[in-house]
């Protein structure tokens, strides 16, 4: 184990640039995502105005010098709402990915290593997986009231079982390795075995999984907002924009077009980045896909 571990970082450092050259799509996806995240972070400086300011005299205007992408049915500037809406998608995507990976990692490590807990935890995960994720999220939001925090938790809960299964499968293969048995035989305490010897093996597949969770969380947030069970309508989010624009779709289709394109491009970029990371970090999984 020590020899390849020492050789790998050097290979990775020299390999990154040729990798991006070989997969230009991944590089483009990375740049697109970088731009979206920066635009979301510096939304007030992106030539935007107050995304919630109403101008009743300027309703449903097509694009002009003043309103680049036109205005919506309340006269709000669509460009500003689009840029501020990126904040919600980026925040939900990152928060759900980070939280579900963290929780899934802890549950998966413990379940995979401690035998008697395994059956119990996995039955709970099976039950969670049997409930369609969007319905579970809808129920969680409708029970606890719509706010950004409940939306994040509601989207996170259905994502956890997949992470747990992934971590558990890694733990089950790694725990039989000689170096783990050696660590056990010299009396290394359980937390140290889990963190020092088993955790590092989980990281590469988890990074890949995190990108997929992020993409799916953005998708679910948009769907929840679209259905009226998501981000409160006072906050501009892409899902909310689509939900409001659908009522006047035949008169002003562009209001639906822009948030739709923004969603598709962002999620596409995350997915492409995930596929690239998978080919790079997890060749075994890449072969199976």
């Amino acid at each position, binding site marked *: 184990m020590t020899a390849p571990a020492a050789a790998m970082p050097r290979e990775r450092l020299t390999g990154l640039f040729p990798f991006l050259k070989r997969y230009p799509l991944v590089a483009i996806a990375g740049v697109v995502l970088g731009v979206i995240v920066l635009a979301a972070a510096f939304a007030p400086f992106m030539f935007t105005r107050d995304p919630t300011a109403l101008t009743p005299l300027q309703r449903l205007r097509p694009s002009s010098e003043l309103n680049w992408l036109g205005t919506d049915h309340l006269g709000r500037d669509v460009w500003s709402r689009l840029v501020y809406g990126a904040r919600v998608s980026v925040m939900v995507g990152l928060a759900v990915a980070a939280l579900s990976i963290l929780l899934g990692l802890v549950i998966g490590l413990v379940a995979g290593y401690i035998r008697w807990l395994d059956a119990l935890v996995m*039955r*709970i995960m*099976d*039950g*969670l*997986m*049997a*409930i*369609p*994720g*969007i*319905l*579970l999220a*809808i*129920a*969680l939001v*409708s*029970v*606890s009231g719509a706010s950004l925090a409940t939306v994040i938790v509601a989207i996170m809960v259905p994502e956890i079982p997949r992470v747990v299964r992934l971590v558990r499968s890694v733990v089950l293969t790694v725990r039989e390795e000689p170096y783990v048995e050696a660590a056990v035989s010299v009396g290394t305490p359980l937390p140290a075995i889990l963190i020092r010897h088993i955790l590092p093996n989980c990281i590469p597949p988890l990074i890949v999984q995190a990108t997929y969770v992020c*993409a799916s969380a953005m*998708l679910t947030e*948009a*769907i929840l907002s*679209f*259905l*009226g*069970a998501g981000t409160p309508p006072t906050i501009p989010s892409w899902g909310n924009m*689509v939900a409001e624009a*659908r009522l006047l*779709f*035949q008169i002003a*289709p562009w209001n*639906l077009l822009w948030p*739709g*394109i923004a*969603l*598709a491009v962002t*999620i*596409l970029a995350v*997915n*492409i980045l995930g*596929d690239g990371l998978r080919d790079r970090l997890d060749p075994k999984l890449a072969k*199976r*896909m």
Partner: protein
Amino acid sequence: MLRLIATRVLSTIPVMGVVALIVFFMLRLSGDPAAILAGDTASSEQVEKIRVSLGLTKPLYEQFFGWVVQLLRFDLGTSLFTGLPVTTLIAQRIEPTAMLALTTIIFSVCVAVPMGVLAAWKSGGWIDRLVMVICVLGFSVPVFVMGYFLIFNFAITLRWFPVQGYTSPFVDFGRFLTQITLPTITLSFIYVALIARITRASVIEVLGEDYIRTARAKGQVEAKVLFRHALKNAAVPIVTVIGLGVALLIGGVVVTESVYNIPGLGRLVVDAITRRDYPIIQGLILFFALIYIVLNLIIDIIYTLVDPRIRY
């Protein structure tokens, strides 16, 4: 064989039990269930009345087992808004959803499996790349964006299909077909991506096997090699994904019905959200989870019957 099937059937009981527990505690963990069920405008007397009528004053375990006994009698509770039993509402709305799911599964399998086989056959070529692009797009474009894109182009601009609505196939089959086409394509997109990707991967794996070389060596026609020898042996993961993908399909149905104004179970959920009719949401979760579990159970049993390699 019978013993295997019986074990598999029994193994669904704990899963269903966990689903029931999750749904039961979801309502109770998030505060006072009586207040949630009564809604924002209810007075404190109304809340109290609901609390007593639901037996929320009894101990928790008694409530849970009472509720499970109710469920076993196919009683999913009563809608707060209409006062009708949830099972009645589901029965009223199930036909459009079942039809949409059926057309979507048929369409997706017919499109995705040949797509995946072709991509695997010419793996690395332009067909393969095209299929992979379609797959990534399928996972990235939100259902409603796809829906409105199709409506705008094929219903409003080209006028090939009606914009919205649903007609039962038992009333007017021709109208049913024109109205169900766009929703089916919309909902199929992500499902096609899922099935095509798995088909491609598992056919690529099988194409490396010795018996494929043998089949080719004896001069078998390439189409027969692909669809008879390769696809047949690659079938298990494909059928598994078709079953697991039903969870995705259920999420998509809710959105698609809302986009195309189809009066099915998805619309029932959306209406329940706006009216905060919690018993309907809860009942539908249980109903969809049951369908998902039973469907995957049937798929597993079919494997054991068809494929002698599978043993639990």
